[in-house]
């Protein structure tokens, strides 16, 4: 048994101290309120205990001033908590632009992770200290939740959606990774670890093992192997829309609607092609449901994203900057 008996979880990310400061603020305010009321309760209960059965205390009906006081003061304190909380939440939901993207796929009962350079891991993630890491999280089956207590981050892995989270590790070490959304029998075994390493060590770790392909290259290969390229040609002579420069842009649909071509749209178009057909095209694309798994879809998305107009994204080191819906 571990002899350690901690009361505060390890702080190992840049947002952890922000979250803890906020936690401490709420704890202080609520603590003072609770102790104050307990003392008042006990004091009144003892001080005014019944001494004889004939006691008939004088009536006090209430006091508008007091009512307003104990409505307005808690209300103001709560506004302060809310505003501070919203600020931290924004920070938790806004990854820095230079973050490296790691894709996360939850599957009963494991976490499948892929580095921007293509390395894959299961239930373990190696990351360099001090570097912002953006997580693009989805699920292959039911809902899971990616939770790293030491980083104070948690985000659900929802099938059919791409959720974002990010962290910047501040100290090396190995930290728990938990699944926090109940997902069946082995839910409590859907755990793993985040290994935070010095940047040089991380480079050594990356270099170990066979050289992998980046998700963009994998996606490009799939694009050919699955014959996507027959219809989605680079010129506009194909039966399907040209995909160059489409990602992240607004697309006009046959229904007249306009939507943004984000990761969720690309995914839906691969699996249910007839759901949202681009204006000017026939609904002739067959579904790829059952032929591609979530990781392959992520690779295809990465490839399509790399076809954005400033072709700089094609450089392998600058692999997908976003696999997630743009907000």
């Amino acid at each position, binding site marked *: 048994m571990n002899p350690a008996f901690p009361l505060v979880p390890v702080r190992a990310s840049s947002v952890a101290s922000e979250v803890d400061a906020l936690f401490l603020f709420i704890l202080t305010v609520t603590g003072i309120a609770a102790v104050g009321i307990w003392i008042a309760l006990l004091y009144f209960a003892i001080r005014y205990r019944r001494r004889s059965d004939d006691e008939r205390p004088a009536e006090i009906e209430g006091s508008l001033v007091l009512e307003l006081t104990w409505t307005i003061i808690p209300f103001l304190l709560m506004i302060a908590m809310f505003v501070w909380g919203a600020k931290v939440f924004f920070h938790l939901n806004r990854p820095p632009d230079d973050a490296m993207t790691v894709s996360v796929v939850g599957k009963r009962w494991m976490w499948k992770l892929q580095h921007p350079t293509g390395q894959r891991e299961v239930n373990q993630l190696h990351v360099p200290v001090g570097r912002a890491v953006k997580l693009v999280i989805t699920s292959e089956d*039911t809902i899971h939740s990616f939770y790293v207590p030491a980083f104070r981050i948690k985000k659900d892995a929802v099938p059919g959606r791409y959720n*974002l989270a990010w962290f910047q590790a501040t100290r090396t070490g190995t930290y728990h990774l938990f699944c926090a959304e109940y997902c069946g029998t082995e839910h409590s075994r859907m755990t793993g670890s985040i290994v935070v390493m010095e940047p040089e060590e991380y480079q050594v770790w990356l270099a170990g093992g066979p050289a992998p392909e980046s998700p963009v290259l994998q996606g490009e290969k799939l694009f050919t192997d699955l014959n996507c390229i027959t219809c989605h040609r680079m010129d506009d002579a194909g039966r399907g829309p040209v995909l160059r420069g489409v990602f992240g842009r607004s697309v006009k649909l046959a229904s007249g609607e306009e939507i943004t071509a984000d990761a969720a749209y690309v995914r839906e178009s691969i699996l249910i092609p007839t759901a949202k057909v681009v204006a000017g095209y026939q609904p002739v694309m067959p579904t790829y449901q059952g032929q591609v798994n979530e990781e392959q879809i992520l690779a295809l998305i990465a490839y399509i994203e790399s076809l954005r107009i400033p072709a700089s994204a094609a450089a392998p080191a600058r692999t997908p900057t976003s696999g997630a819906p743009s907000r």
Partner: protein
Amino acid sequence: MTSESRTLPADHYLKSGWDLKSWLLTTDHKRIGLMYLVSITLMFAIGSIYAGIVRWNLLVPNGSQMSAEAYNKAFTGHGVVMVFFFLIPSIPATLGNFLIPLMIGAKDLAFPRINLLSWYIYVIGAALTMYALLTGGLETGWTFYTPYSTVFAESNVAVAAVGIFIAGFSSILTGLNFIVTIHKMRAPGLTWFRLPLFVWAHYATAIIQILGTPVVAITILLVALERLFHFGFFDPNRGGDPILFQHLFWFYSHPAVYIMILPSMGVISEIVTCFSRKRIFGYSFIAMSSLAIAVIGFLVWAHHMFVTGLSVYSAMVFSALTYLVAVPSAIKTFNWTATLFRGSVQWDTPMIYVFCFIGLFLIGGLTGLFLGNLGTDVHLTDTYFVVAHFHYIMVGGAIMGYLGGLHFWWPKITGRKYVESWGKVSSLLVFVGFNLTFFPQFVLGYLGMPRRYWSYPEEFQILNVLSTAGATILGFGYLFPFSYLTHSVFRGEPAGDNPWGAKGLEWTTQSPPKTHNFDAVPVVDEEPYDYASPPKETVRV
């Protein structure tokens, strides 16, 4: 108290028969309240056994006590039974049923036969759900999250869902009955602002029951339909949206928390004023805060979903509204405490439960501020912090109020007294056991232990062992009232009509009351909780 009131009255509602038929076909709200009391006590016992299994498993980190399947079924059984079949009906169906007509000077609820019907519906729903739990079990968690429940679960989801669907109608009918009764059957002179706060609390509860329960009934039916016939409501592979389920589910299930806690707040208001022998502080603020909770409570549901990928702006709206709904609860707490000021405070068992309630509900409510907060919720949600938080509300709040109310009105219900010292001892056991069970869980959650874990990292063991030790004490704490209250029904000393010197119409009739409650329609000519004047004598004809 005069010696003549030391015998039970010759005629009362329990004397109208002890045979099965006289119970199963009764339309007397008092008897139906007692039938509910027996039914929910049974369900509480079953739910407690499930809780015991859960705590037993968590004594060790590696899950060696039982299989993961068994554990998952145990925590699901605990949640389903306690939420749908104990907490939701608890106070309204027992004390509310028994007391509302008495408190407003009526001879029964507006629809006595619908009242009986609601009990039968409850029993059918409970029986069906228990059948599902005992033959194959259920491992979805009480929340039935999709697509797990509709696609992946390998248990009796559809049967249990139908059982809960059915039981929902019992709650709707009770709410409907209360609203009509409170509107139409008040005694002459009993204006809205002379109503006991217990009645106000039930009025607010009934609004939630009527507006909220149909939503969860439909949602849970959609789960059953998707599971049986593969409709694509929630399954993303069929074009459904799993998050839609969470919106629909919490649209009811968050207000449902107020179905559990509001009646309990009503009980506290009654007891605190009687045992301080003083008019309640800020009557209209307490009454209106119940309504405010019922209304705002419908607008906060997505605070259960801050990490699902909800947009940051909607998350902000729901967080702000969550803070708003905390205000009326704070107002109530301050007013109860202020009622004691310069009062004449009697430390009897019901009042001790009030102290427990205020002390524990305070922790439950204040820890809600950590969870309604966007910044801290991300870390805390789906951990033991949440488990601890809602147990402080539902056990520390709702059940303490229920026990307090049961002890307070027990002499009215049975006409007899329980042994006071036993009441005190057991309330102490419940208080200590409860805190030992759930306080460590706040720490566990802050440290990052996720809920619904059958096995867990070793560093969490000490706190889990403490929690299980507390649960053991709590279990004994619950057995005591069960024993001495049952004992008092047969052997208790006759209590007299108004043993506490309480105000309120229910204390102006005999204990136990006659089947038709009052011999003459009472006329109300005084303000509520007018403790400055001595209690009225029972009118005996």
